């Protein structure tokens, strides 16, 4: 941090709630308590305004128009790429590829990198905590190229067994792909350590940061992974936009994945030469408005101090854990020492679906089910959990409402 930036006055995190119009609406006749931010966060007025302004004053297709409107749109679009670059501490905007979301980013790497570099007989290491989006793309390419999937197990707290991981590493491994933060259990994984260990064997590492970017400062150079992906809609930005960050040496060496406008330099029917990074990977008209609004989301987050956001969320996590544990029959899943503001639980004698239905009636939005982590649920031997996930805009009162509602629901159901 420079001398200057220490002078910046950050807005208090507690204020943020007022910036999100949806949080003052009602659900089933009750003031909405939104505790499903791990599925998708809500959007601040700044992001909504960015979309409105873009379509009302700035819209035009990018990169090829000479007229002012198109120049403005292109400028805003590329500015947003620079914001993303700074946000995750990348060295160059050439490393920032706009995609639809984390899922598309992982597919891009699996298919482009995988087709070029994966060799039959090799192994891909995932973890027991992974979201389907960080499993299925690897299964597909593994099947195509003849590799095996290996899984880092977890301990009873839901932490990765790093000792086992260490033993799994070998020359056969061709990719390690793990999430930064588990969406189902909240576990914050030691991604820097994982990368360092994998790199000892020269194994490339992809980190699925879908759950991380709204909760902690991400520095891709510090983590030193080879790829990092995340989704705009999980960090106060719009749906349909996300980011693949990759080290330039890899992105340069990888073949393009989708073909079309934007990603070419010259086209003849005989031969096509590809554009430079990052455009090589951005075929077709991109989600221009979405990218610009993602930049607005980054500006929004920048008004706050990330360590204060983290502290606020940790306080919510602790309070939520305390309040729920006062309720009879509550059992928690995921009690990692390093944990994000995600509380997965079950109430003895109740089905998560039933609990979700009753909470909904009381105006409380939580997620129930397998959270797109079926292998993890199978491993835990449960059909799913009830998951309350908090973001910066949640207040302690939300937890009070949740605890009260769970208590009532339990009485109704048991």
């Amino acid at each position, binding site marked *: 941090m420079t001398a200057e930036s220490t002078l910046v006055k950050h807005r208090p995190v507690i204020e943020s709630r007022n910036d999100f119009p949806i949080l003052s609406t009602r659900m*089933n006749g009750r003031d909405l308590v939104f505790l499903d931010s791990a599925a998708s966060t809500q959007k601040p007025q700044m992001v909504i305004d960015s979309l409105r302004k873009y379509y009302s004053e700035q819209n035009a297709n990018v990169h090829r128009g000479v007229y002012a409107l198109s120049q403005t749109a292109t400028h805003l679009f590329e500015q947003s790429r620079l914001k993303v670059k700074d946000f995750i501490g990348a060295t160059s905007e050439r490393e920032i590829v706009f995609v639809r979301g984390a899922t598309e980013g992982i597919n891009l790497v699996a298919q482009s990198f995988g087709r070029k570099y994966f060799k039959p007989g090799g192994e891909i290491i995932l973890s027991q905590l992974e979201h389907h989006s960080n499993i299925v793309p690897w299964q597909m390419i593994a099947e195509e190229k003849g590799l095996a999937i290996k899984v880092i197990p977890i301990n009873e707290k839901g932490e990765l067994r790093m000792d086992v991981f260490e033993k799994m590493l070998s020359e056969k491994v061709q990719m390690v792909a793990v999430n930064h933060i588990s969406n189902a259990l909240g576990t914050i994984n030691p991604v820097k350590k994982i990368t360092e260990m994998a790199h000892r064997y020269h194994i490339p590492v992809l980190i699925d940061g879908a759950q991380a970017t709204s909760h902690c400062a991400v520095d891709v150079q510090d983590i030193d992974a080879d790829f990092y992906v995340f989704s705009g809609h999980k960090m106060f930005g719009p749906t349909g936009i996300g980011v693949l960050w990759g080290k330039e040496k890899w992105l340069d060496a990888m073949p393009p994945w989708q073909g079309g406008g934007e990603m070419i330099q010259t086209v003849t029917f005989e031969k096509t030469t590809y554009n430079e990074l990052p455009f090589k990977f951005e075929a077709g008209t991109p989600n221009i408005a979405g990218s610009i609004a993602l930049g607005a989301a980054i500006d929004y987050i920048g008004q706050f101090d990330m360590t204060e956001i983290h502290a606020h969320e940790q306080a919510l996590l602790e309070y939520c854990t305390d309040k729920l544990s006062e309720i009879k029959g509550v059992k928690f899943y995921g009690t990692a020492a390093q944990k994000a503001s995600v509380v997965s639980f079950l109430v003895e004698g*109740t*089905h*998560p*679906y*039933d609990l*979700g*239905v*009753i909470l909904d*009636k009381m105006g409380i939005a939580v997620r*129930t*089910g*397998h959270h797109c982590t079926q292998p993890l649920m199978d491993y835990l031997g449960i*059909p*799913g959990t009830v998951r309350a996930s908090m973001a910066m805009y949640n207040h302690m009162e939300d937890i009070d409402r949740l605890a009260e509602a769970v208590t009532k629901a339990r009485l*109704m*159901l048991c």
Partner: protein
Amino acid sequence: MKSIEDKQREIIEDFSLFDDWMQKYEYIIDLGKSLPLIEEEYKTDEYLIKGCQSRVWLRAEIKDDRVYFKADSDAVITRGIIALLIRVLSGQKAVDIGGSDLYFIDRIGLKEHLSPTRSNGLTSMVKQMKYYGIGLQNKETV
């Protein structure tokens, strides 16, 4: 045996007594708890209707021209609604089941539970029940 029509009207009347959603859900939960369970031996994949949120097992038996349903779910609210559906449809004539319009669900304010987006297995279950009604009028057991 009362008609599908009559049974629906009966249920709508029952529900008109409730003042709020709590009473209504308490009633459904009670129903869910009291549902005569399907025999454990039928709780297999063969009888399973997949729902992402809750699982449903359904079994049909045909006697003369009538279809008798047994069903279960792992979630009690789903089960309660199953109980209502069985009350209306089980033992009815196959032909009536196939063509039935289950408007009572809407009228008692439970439409959301039969939305295909709920993925609790109920939409598929109703589809399956009607399918039995239409398709299996001439078979003995299903």
